[in-house]
């Protein structure tokens, strides 16, 4: 897994997100409308693609795309 692939997976889930806009350092809340439904979409994608669970706390503590990616990387079972 790598962060480029993670960003592609996010882009695939969110129609509003034009490809290429989201960068590792992008702040989630600023990059696209952040609401509870979008949080669920992200959680569902991460569970399906990486079999990793993100909690509400994880999402509150993570600011950037890279923060969330690091969480996944640490938890993913190889």
């Amino acid at each position: 897994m790598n962060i480029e692939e993670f960003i592609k997976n996010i882009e695939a889930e969110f129609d509003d997100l034009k490809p290429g806009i989201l960068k590792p350092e992008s702040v989630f809340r600023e990059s696209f409308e952040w609401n509870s439904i979008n949080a669920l979409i992200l959680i569902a994608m991460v569970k399906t693609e990486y079999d990793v669970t993100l909690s509400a706390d994880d999402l509150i503590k993570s600011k950037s795309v890279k923060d969330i990616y690091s969480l996944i990387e640490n938890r993913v079972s190889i």
Partner: protein
Amino acid sequence: MATFFLGGIKITGISAAVPEKKEFTSDYQWISVKERESIIKNIGVESRRVAEKGVTTSDLCVIAAEKLLNDLNWNRNEVEVLIFVSQSRDYLVPTTACIVQDRLGLPHSCMALDIALGCSGYVYGLSVIASLMQSGAIKKGLLLVGDISTLTTNYRDKSTYPLFGDVGTATALEYNREATAMRFNLQTDGSGYKSLIIQDGGARNVMSRKSFNVKKISPGIYRSRLHLELDGIEVFNFTLREVAPNIKALLKETGKSLGEIDYVVFHQANRLINETLRKMLRLDPAKVPYSIKEFGNTSGASVPLTMVVSLNETLQNGNTRLLLSAFGVGLSWGSAILETNNLCMPALIEV
């Protein structure tokens, strides 16, 4: 592990009654048009049925049961167990099932009880009624499952209001020694009881004047302590963590594979949850019926409602192997594998 088999009981028929009044997500003025579109697309709810004030869950269940009893041409004196599964009872006291026994003209020899479960209620209710009937002493039983959830959601709470719909269902069961065993796997994790909760009005937090105060929780979410509170992310993660292993354990225990199941009927929580579960279990979309689009999340009755509206003809004709899976408030969840044969399935009743 609460995994067990119950032989000698078969489902004879299922019916459902919904209020005629529809509310459309596209008309939900409290949120932006974009948010409404997001609910329709991701949560999957286009419209819901909403009961008028004063209509209770038992009213809908009685209408569904009357139709079913008449279509089956059952002698009501033979119905000796009645179970009402709901979180929206008629009164705090007495038990709603007692009132319904009388309204349906069932005999005094009928045992009647309530089960206060929500989302997981149909699978739990089936296991309890089948257990009670298993000895063969009781030949016929009625399982009523329903909820009027719209009574306890606040219009100004976007996390609950556009999600829930109302319905009452009735399932008829018969003792039959030849019937294929029903298999169950039932589970509980009460540590998550706050994920779906109405804070006040029970014995823990007695209703007071403060209970009615509506407070802002976050943007778009206002409620009082008498309204339903839903922690979407907690419930979502619970479902993704527990439901697939629960189903796999039941399949393993029974030596069956998903390939031997004709349909998997999930509790209609929301489209995103259900689709994620479907993908996790690698199920073909054609095997997974839905009712959430037109009826919303209908609590414990979502499984029988989905059977009535999406599998009606199939269940009326021949044998069908079903896996039912329901999960939510409690936290409580469970699955069942059962086989149906030429069920009596009246068309959906609109009241």
